[in-house]
């Protein structure tokens, strides 16, 4: 691909100036246009993404409070950050949330994809139902689930009305369990998407191998375990990468569902950063927490993107 395109550009230049030894002004301008067209986007990106990252990293080493200050304090903010109980709660919560969220989404996504791949009648009807929550805002999802899980009016109350008096489901009000309600709502929103990724992977598998294995007497279970699921490796990887970066970035859903509460039971790094920076006026600490978040995402995304882009060469 690379060689082909380059040679085509080179050839075009040759044709445009068939006799001249040196390209004339017009041709040189023509050759500049692509770079000129790309430059506004590049400038925006360099300033608003990478410049801003540098600035935030710098702030994390300063004693900024309500406004940025340029007083250098070294690693003090990071030391403070990791001594804060608030922060350790936030990262523990993220750990619990992210691992459950990723594991359950992949389990549900893969199962639904395998089920849908069995020549199911009504697949075209079911698939959009599994996937529509992905089109909703996390604020809408949070509103719906907050109420559905509210013991006084939602599911628990309904079960009581239906005569199941001992039914108890008050996780959203319970400090020890509230983080799991965030998992439930987040899984609801994105597991259909994971299903779509696995389904695309399943549809890409060569059936000849399966038919051969079937003739050899392999059971369905063994075919999935030995042949099909190993071939879904790229889908597993993509799902993991996408879900983990979504988990680290989760902010809206927590705000809408629990607001970080009860107490600090569902505080996560994204809500921590926001409250320290904008309501508690501890900008230095807020910036250092954002840097930690960025490094976590980068540790996952950079190797992935590097591998993806290298393959193309």
């Amino acid at each position, binding site marked *: 691909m690379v060689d082909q395109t380059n040679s*085509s550009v080179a050839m075009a230049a040759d044709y445009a100036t068939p006799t001249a030894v040196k390209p004339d002004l017009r041709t040189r301008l023509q050759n500049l246009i692509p770079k000129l067209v*790309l430059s506004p986007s590049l400038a925006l990106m360099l300033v608003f993404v*990478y410049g801003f990252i540098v600035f935030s990293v710098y702030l994390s080493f300063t004693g900024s409070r309500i406004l940025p200050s340029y007083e250098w304090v070294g690693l003090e903010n990071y030391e403070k950050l990791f001594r804060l109980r608030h922060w350790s709660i936030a990262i523990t919560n993220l750990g619990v949330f992210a691992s459950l969220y990723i594991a359950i989404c992949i389990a549900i996504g893969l199962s639904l994809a395998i089920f849908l791949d069995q020549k199911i009648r009504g697949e075209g009807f079911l698939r959009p139902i599994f996937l529509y929550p992905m089109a909703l805002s996390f604020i809408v999802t949070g509103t719906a689930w907050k109420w559905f899980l509210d013991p006084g009016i939602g599911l628990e109350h309904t079960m009581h009305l239906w005569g199941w008096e001992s039914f108890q489901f008050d996780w959203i009000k319970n400090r020890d369990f509230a983080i799991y309600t965030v998992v439930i709502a987040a899984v609801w929103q994105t597991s259909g998407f994971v299903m779509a990724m696995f389904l695309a992977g399943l549809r890409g598998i060569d*059936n000849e191998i399966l038919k051969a294995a079937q003739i050899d007497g392999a059971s369905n279970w063994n075919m999935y375990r030995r042949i099909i699921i190993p071939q879904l490796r790229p889908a597993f990887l993509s799902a993991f990468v996408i879900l983990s970066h979504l988990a680290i970035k989760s902010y809206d859903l927590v705000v809408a569902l629990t607001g970080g509460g009860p107490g600090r039971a569902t505080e996560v790094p994204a809500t921590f950063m926001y409250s320290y920076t904008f309501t508690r006026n501890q900008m230095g600490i807020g910036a250092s927490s954002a840097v930690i978040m960025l490094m976590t995402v980068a540790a996952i995304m950079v190797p992935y993107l590097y591998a993806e882009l290298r393959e193309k060469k």
Partner: protein
Amino acid sequence: MSVASTENAISTGRITRAFIYLMLILFATFYLLPFGIMLINSVKPLSEINGGNMMALPQVFTLEPWFKAWNSAQIGVEPTGLQPYFWNSLKMVFPAVAISTVLGALNGYVLTKWRFKGDTILFGLMLFACFIPFQIVLIPMARVLGFLGIAGSTPGLVLVHVVYGLGFTTLYFRNYYQVFPTELIRAAQIDGAGFFRIFWRIMLPSSGPIIVVSVIWQFTNIWNDFLFGASFADLDSQPMTVALNNLVSSSTGVKEYNVHFAGAILAALPTLLVYIVAGRYFVRGLMAGSVKG
């Protein structure tokens, strides 16, 4: 994705099939339930919700909560309903989607058909920008918007969404143009067509599907954004999601659940409509964002 092109070779017994259908139906219920119940309860009077059964159909059907959510519910300090915020969102979404899609198309065209040394690294940098946690840019962005004099305004939000949407739109068009036959471009160049004429006459006319994908993706993302809206918008530029959150989480007075539900559905309506009309393209956009192919 759209058609079951490769027939699955696996055959299943009757009991297994029954189990599979049961599971599929259970999950369909799981996905439909929260939103469905919200819909049912948005047309009930409040008295039927408080103490009533959320699963029950309304005894008295009323559209009052919907009207209230739209134009008279208390949001912040003003009893304006969600209506002004709905327009705020639209005013923000249309320019942001248009600009980021146009820039993405041009970038994708340059990155595939006018390649130069180092272009893959540049693309990698743009792609990584899609995935950064936006917390890392909140503080400097607030400063820069203030410096540019567009803090708390719709143009400011448009700028933010264009910048952080560019990576995705570029990705879509780059992947799409990558498989576009380069011979056609070469032939046009031989005929003397320049950069823009090739883009306009050859690339754009065949870009229909990917434009739809990009527009839908950007529309959904920007409409659903909460973080930027909450951080950078003033009262007169706040988008729908922020207003909805204010409506739902305001602690004063009686909690009018039916109004909250109607509001949540109003906030979800535009993206849901897009999904219903063009779900195929929405899925394609999602997939392109995950599996770069």
